C-alpha cells in the first residue's frame, strides 16, 4: 500500500544533490554560508562591539582623569586601576577568595533554584497556596538582605549556613516568580493538548509546563542569580572566616580603606564575574530560541 501512490517521499538525499548543483550555479547566493572560515568572522562580529564599548568607556574615563575633575585619590585613572587589578589578580590569595565566594554563590544559587522551582511549581499548581503565599514571594524579595541577618543568626548561628540562608532567601523568590509567570503564560492550546495526552502531576510538569515556561524560567534564573550574588556580597560581611578572604570581605575592606583604585578594581572583578555568568545564561537562552525556531528573520 505504501508503494501505491507515493505522493511525496523523503528527498533529503536528492535535495542535497540539488543543493550542490545550485551551489555550482550560483555559488555567491547559495551554499552553506556558515563554513569554518566564517567562524572566525562570527567571533569577531560578536567581539568588536564589546571591545569598542570597553575602549570608549576607558577613553572617556581617561579623559575625565586628565581633565583633573577630581583628585587622583578620589578618581584614579585607568592605568592606576589596571595596575592595581593586575597586582590583585596575580596573588594566590585573591583566587582563594574568588574560589570561596564562587563556591558559596554556586551552592547557594543551586539550592535557591531547587527551592524556588519546588515552591513556584507548588504555588502555581494549588490555588489556595497561591492565594496564601503568592504575593508573599515578591514581598520577601523586597526585604533587604541585612534584615535577614538576625533571623539567620538565630537559626544557624554564625556559620556558612547563615550565609546560605541569606543567599537562598534572596534568590529563590526570583526563581519561583519566573517559573510562576512562565506557567501562567503557557498557551492554553498546549495545556489542552497535554490534557488530551493524559498528562498529569509530575509528567505534566516534566513534559509540558517546564519546557513551555523555560524562557520565563531562564529569565527568572538570571534575576535570581543577580539577587543571590548581591545577597552573598551582603552575607559575606556577616561572617569573616579567617583564612581565605571572600570577595565580599575584600570589597568592603577596599571601601573601608577608601582605596578608590581598589574599589574600582573590585567593581571590575564583580562585573566580569557577572558578565561571564550572563554569557552562560545567554548561551542557554540562545540554544532554546534556536530549538524553538525563534531565530532568523
Amino acid at each position: 500500500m505504501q508503494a501505491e501512490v507515493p505522493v511525496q517521499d523523503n528527498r533529503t538525499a536528492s535535495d542535497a544533490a540539488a543543493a550542490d548543483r545550485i551551489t555550482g550555479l550560483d555559488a555567491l547566493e547559495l551554499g552553506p554560508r556558515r563554513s569554518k572560515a566564517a567562524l572566525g568572522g562570527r567571533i569577531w562580529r560578536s567581539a568588536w562591539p564589546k571591545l569598542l564599548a570597553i575602549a570608549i568607556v576607558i577613553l572617556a574615563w581617561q579623559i575625565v582623569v586628565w581633565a583633573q575633575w577630581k583628585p587622583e585619590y578620589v578618581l584614579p585613572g585607568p592605568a592606576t586601576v589596571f595596575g592595581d587589578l593586575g597586582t590583585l589578580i596575580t596573588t594566590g590569595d585573591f583566587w582563594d577568595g574568588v574560589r570561596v565566594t564562587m563556591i558559596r554563590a554556586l551552592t547557594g544559587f543551586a539550592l535557591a533554584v531547587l527551592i524556588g522551582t519546588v515552591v513556584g511549581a507548588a504555588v502555581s499548581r494549588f490555588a489556595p497556596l497561591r492565594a496564601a503565599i503568592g504575593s508573599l514571594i515578591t514581598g520577601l524579595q523586597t526585604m533587604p538582605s541585612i534584615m535577614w541577618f538576625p533571623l539567620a543568626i538565630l537559626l544557624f548561628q554564625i556559620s556558612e549556613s547563615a550565609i546560605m540562608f541569606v543567599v537562598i532567601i534572596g534568590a529563590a523568590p526570583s526563581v519561583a516568580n519566573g517559573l510562576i509567570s512562565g506557567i501562567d503564560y503557557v498557551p492554553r492550546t498546549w495545556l489542552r493538548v497535554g490534557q488530551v495526552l493524559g498528562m498529569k502531576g509530575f509528567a505534566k510538569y516534566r513534559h509540558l509546563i517546564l519546557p513551555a515556561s523555560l524562557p520565563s524560567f531562564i529569565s527568572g534564573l538570571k534575576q535570581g542569580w543577580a539577587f543571590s550574588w548581591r545577597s552573598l556580597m551582603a552575607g559575606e560581611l556577616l561572617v569573616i572566616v579567617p583564612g581565605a578572604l571572600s570577595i565580599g570581605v575584600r570589597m568592603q575592606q577596599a571601601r573601608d580603606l577608601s582605596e578608590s583604585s581598589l574599589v574600582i578594581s573590585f567593581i571590575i572583578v564583580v562585573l566580569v564575574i557577572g558578565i561571564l555568568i550572563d554569557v552562560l545564561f545567554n548561551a542557554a537562552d540562545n540554544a532554546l530560541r534556536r530549538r524553538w525556531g525563534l531565530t532568523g528573520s
Partner: protein
Amino acid sequence: GKSDDAASASGEAAALRLGYFPNITHAPALIGVKNGLYQQSLGSTKLEPKTFNAGPAAVEALFSGAVDATYIGPNPAINAWATSKGTAIKIIAGSTSGGAGLVVKDGINTPADLKGKKIATPQLGNTQDVALRHWLKENGLNADQQGGGDVSVLPQDNATALQAFAQGAIDGAWVPEPNLSRMILESKGKLLVNEKDLWPNGQFVTTHLIVKQEFLKKYPATVKKLLQGHLASVKFITTDGAGAQKAANEQLGALSGKPLKDEILASAFKNLSFTNDPIASSLYTSAGHAQGVGLLKPVELKGIYDLGPLNELLKADGQPPVSDAAAS
C-alpha cells in the same frame, strides 16, 4: 550553643566564642588572637574567635547565642543592656580609650563657623553622634535628628563619610580612629575638637569587653581565664608599643586582606590608649548626654558592670582595682 553541651562541673566551658571587629580600636583582641594570648590562658577551653563589622551584628550574635563574649563599643552595650532589661550582658573589662574627634575642612576654626554645615557621624545615637550633638548644644548650636537645625548632622557609615569628606560633599565628621587619622592625613582635614579634651583625664571609653550573663554564671572560671588573656594582651600593648602595632596590623591584614598604612597606624595608636579600666564614669556621662539630646530613653545602668573577676586578677597582679562608680 556548643559550650552548653560540654558543660563541666568545674565551671569551665569546652569552647569560648569571642567576637571582635577587625578594627584598630579592638587592638587587644587583634593582638590576643594573633599571639595566642587567650588560648594560652584558656588552656583546655578552645577559643573560637568570630569577627563582626559593627556593633548591632555582634549584639545580634550574642543575643542569639552565637558568641559568648565580645569586644564592643559603649553604645551597643548600653542598647543591649536596655533592651534586655539588664538580663543579657555584663561589661567585665575596659579595653580602649580615646581616639575620636571632630575633623573639619579648612576654613572652619570655631564652633560658630559650623553654622549651616554638614557634619557626619557614624550612626545616629552612637557615642560619636552623642558627643557631637552634646558638644554642639554646649556651644549654642542645635541639630535635630532629621538632619536639620543650625548644623546638619548626617549619620553615615565610615567609608561613605571618608569619601564624602575627601570630595567635599560634607564639611566635617566626628569619627573614631583610624578614620580620624585618615581624614587628617589623607584628606588634609583639620582636627577641630579632640574628644579627649572634653573628658576628665582625657579618658573615655571607646571599646570594652562584654560577656553574656548566662555564660558568666555558668562558667565563671572560663570568663576569668578570658580576662587573664585580655590583661596579658593589654599589658603587651602598654609595654611593647612597636611590637603591638606590628602584631595588630598583621592580624588586620590577615582578616581583611589589607593592613593599615604605617603612618596611619602610628597616628591612630598615638590617639588611643589601652586600659583595663572601663572608665565607667564616661559611660554614665555619655548616656546622660544621650538622654539630654533625646537619643536615649532613660535607662537604669546600675549593675551593667561586673568588675569583680577583673579586680581579683588585678589584685593578684599587684595592680590597682578599677571602679564602676560614676564620677561625682
